[in-house]
């Protein structure tokens, strides 16, 4: 019997080694897998490369991981937020490397990794500083920039429900990067609000099929991040 469920967040992230590239889902705190991040902090892996849209909010989740100085490099589109002071101070101190990627290129580079695409030409950022040093091409009269996939050793994702085969559904805009990150990582670990019986998720509405998921862990959702957040 195939059972991808794991008992605890700690067990789900136990083998993430130093130096790993880890994708972390979420847009701000919506969809951020905070219990998995907390488990990763406790586990102690360092020298990590993190892929996320942002660079942490306040001192929870990703920001807490940064604060522990476990992250060597972050690949993201929008690090600077009203409450990104942990990242801001590390950046100004030269203690973290930043690869800034336009949000749609970030999403498509992750999607491309999961889809086995070698590289792709995108019009986004053509003629801007973020295309400097990159190969460009004029196609049908329009300028494009060559972008490469972003792969990862692990993806940490938050979903609403999952089953023991790893099929997932998400909740509202917490879906964001989850499905594409799940497809792009060698090992995708998902925290869900509820593990359900096989067949309980209507096959017509499965968003992430289980082939993209290696581990599913049910977490207690009675945490601060499920409550309304301050605008940021």
């Amino acid at each position, binding site marked *: 019997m195939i059972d991808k469920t794991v008992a605890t967040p700690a067990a789900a992230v136990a083998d993430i080694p130093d130096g790993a590239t880890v994708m972390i889902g979420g*847009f*701000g*705190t*919506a*969809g951020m897998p905070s219990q998995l991040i907390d488990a990763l902090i406790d586990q102690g892996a360092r020298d990590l490369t993190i892929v996320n*849209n942002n660079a942490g909010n306040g001192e929870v989740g990703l920001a807490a991981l940064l604060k522990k100085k476990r992250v060597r490099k972050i690949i993201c*589109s*929008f*690090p*600077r*937020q009203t409450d990104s002071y942990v*990242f*801001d101070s590390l*950046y*100004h101190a030269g203690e973290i490397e*930043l690869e*800034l*990627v*336009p*949000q*749609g*290129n*970030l*999403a*498509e580079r*992750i*999607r491309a990794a999961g889809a086995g695409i070698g590289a792709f030409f*995108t*019009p*986004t*950022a*053509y*003629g*801007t*500083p*973020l295309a400097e040093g990159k190969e460009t091409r004029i196609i049908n009269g329009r*300028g494009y920039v060559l972008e490469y996939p972003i792969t990862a050793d692990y993806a940490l994702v938050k979903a609403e429900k999952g089953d023991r085969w790893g099929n997932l559904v*998400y*909740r*509202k*805009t*917490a*879906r*964001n*990067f*989850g*499905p*594409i990150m799940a497809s792009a990582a060698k090992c995708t670990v998902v925290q869900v609000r509820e593990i359900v019986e096989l067949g309980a998720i209507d096959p017509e509405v499965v*968003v992430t099929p289980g082939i993209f998921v290696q581990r599913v862990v049910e977490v207690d959702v009675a945490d601060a*991040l*499920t*409550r*309304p*957040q301050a*605008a*940021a």
Partner: protein
Amino acid sequence: MKRFSRDQMAARVARDIPEGAYVNLGIGLPTMVANHLPRDREIFLHSENGLLGMGPAPAAGQEDADLINAGKQPVTLLTGGAYFHHADSFAMMRGGHLDFCVLGAFQVSRTGDLANWHTGAKDAIPAVGGAMDLAIGAKSVFVMMDHQTKSGTSKIVERCTYPLTGVACVNRIYTDLAVIDVTPEGLRVVETVEGLSFEELERSTGVPLWRAASPAMAH
């Protein structure tokens, strides 16, 4: 000098958005356009973090941390709205499916280059978000901005001095003084705030403008 208020600017943009349009409103001033879209006009608002059919802010106490907009503020979903992942969301832009996006700007050049993501300051932390995708990702790109900086320098320029967001991507500029189209022949004034002459506008602009030949020019 008389100027369009923020609400007048937003209402003027809203006038140009027809029923059935798929629209992304950028963070900041463009968000105000939503308040001026007539309720009897069905318009689909897109937010790049994965929703179409975005509704207004929820009532106090009804906020849902899993339902936010690109500015990370709580929103609602209209009946008939949909959620999707980030790659699909940006395919909607990059693939040319959005009809309009409305963006703020630091500068727009005579040829429609846009600068709106970075002031170029050395110590500033760069953050681009979806700005570059939006700049190239709608059939029509509208910019809403003050005509001049606080120190009185024109934000419509011959060539942008701030780092670019996109090249030759802006179609129409709405400022507190005028509505101006970016055309292959240059910047064409569509209308100006009441009482402002073409010559006065041109003096406030710093690059040559031309007048619509038709009576469509309102003042």
